[in-house]
């Protein structure tokens, strides 16, 4: 293993962004694992890829489009029956502070 590519603090930041609660032991373990992954990425980065166009997608096709024709909608009662809480035909969620980001 070469130089360290991700710090424990960076790993904690990424976990926080993904709303993951990690114990100290997990944070150590995942920092190490992510570091190994980044080592692998570095091997690819070391290659001379000047002549190759960037890959935008794993599939070699583009422009998959669908016609603008309305289709079936879901039954509201059936959908809301599966939600933890519902009220007035809507999903009821914990209070949201501030506005949408």
């Amino acid at each position, binding site marked *: 293993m070469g130089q360290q590519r991700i710090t424990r603090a960076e790993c904690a930041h990424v976990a926080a*962004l993904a*709303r993951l609660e990690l114990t100290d032991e997990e944070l150590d373990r995942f920092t190490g694992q992510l570091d190994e992954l980044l080592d692998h990425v570095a091997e690819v980065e070391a290659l001379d890829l000047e002549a190759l166009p960037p890959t*935008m*997608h*794993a*599939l070699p*096709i*583009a*422009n*998959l*489009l*669908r*016609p*603008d*024709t*309305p*289709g*079936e*909608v*879901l039954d*509201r009662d059936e*959908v*809301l029956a599966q939600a933890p809480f519902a*009220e*007035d*035909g*809507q*999903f*009821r*969620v*914990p*209070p*949201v*502070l*501030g*506005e*949408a*980001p």
Partner: protein
Amino acid sequence: MSDEAQTIPGLGAPADTEWETVVGLEVHAELATATKLFSASPNRFGGEPNTHIDPVSLGLPGSLPVLNEKAVELAIRVGLALNCRIQPSVFARKNYFYPDMPKDFQISQYDQPINVDGWLELPSGKRVGIERAHLEEDTGKTVHIGGGGRIHEAGYSLVDYNRAGVPLIEIVGHPELRSAEEARQYVSELRSILVAVGASDGKMEEGSLRVDCNVSVRPVGSDRLGTRCEIKNVNSLRSLGRAIEYEARRQIDQLTSGQAIEQQTRHWNEDDGRTHALRSKEEDYDYRYFPEPDLLPLNPSTEWVEQIRHALPALPRDRRMNLAEAAPSVDIDNIALAVERSMDELALAAISGGGAAERVMTHIVQNLADGSGQLTPEALAELVGMEEAGELTATQAKKVLAVLVEGGGSPQDAAQTLGFEAMDTDELESLVDSLIAEHADEWSRFCDGDAKLTGFFVGQVMKATQGRADGKAVTQLLNSRRG
């Protein structure tokens, strides 16, 4: 001068400093498709909550997005109308946790948007740069319940996903606007373009057109931009102007009192006429964008783009130029107003049908604010002709016009019904002669040069004819009788 004052334009500036407001706008417009951007449930305003939903707009496991062809076409129309370059593009996930998007990310375009590097021309002729106009999906609507309706005291929230997945185009302009008025003109012009190309209904009040404003200030002559604040919740053109004016004033007051501006997102409150801090840049979100693996790249063919280009209707700018050419003596604001009201076709047809351009435009601008109803261009041309011939006074013409708007028909018939038959010359002459005899005193004073008495005699004629006579013809007659 401190280091800070050197890097922050206007910090601690004296009270008599002249300031410049710098505005850059981000406009979101809902595209007028029948279905959502990535699924087949309807794109329709209103409706019972959660009735326009499907597995994709709810982000259910296993559901996959498929791009709506019409949304792409409309985005290309907007790009072309804004003089953008249409390029190969890629969708990306913008990750954040908020219940308005059930899958915890919004699909947008990030580093490779469909439209880039365009411009929009204001009626004044000023060009404003467009950085990009990209496709993305709209979010659901959350309503806050309890705690007196105030967001920060809310007991809980209710979510309606009818709007989730509705196609949006986000148009990002360069910070090249220099006043609240210019910002209003920009949004108004952009809205006209969106409506003209059929991309959006442009209704700010229904939220199908939403504007976020980036506002900063700097002393006139400074070549650096000040720290900007982003203002959200601006729901009408009027609020846009008010919000920018308030925010510029707030920043100027803060800078002149020696405080730096903090980069913030602020919320416009229509009721108190102020902007309020929502969050500062330091707590801004890290969206962790990455290419959306469930969607393929988009690379519209040149043939398709050219086909769309050829089918584009006339844009407001071209329509203004056409009308200005047909009515060269009419000022540009009135030309722009006619185009904004979509009355330029009526005006052009009436003018080419023989109506005097200036009178046609007077009716369009002053008397047809509520629409042209049943009025045909032929009738408008004829009405203007009757005015020119002195058969109708301006007041009478306005009344005839109202009848034509309401029920159509010809101005001759409408004038007759209203009793506005033109007085023939003999009738007018004998009336004037009898009035001269009746008011011998006033007549001799008029003959001695008392110009005020013109008004007196014209008034008498109008009274006797209940306004049927043409004031100009009466004046001419009085002058010829005086000899």
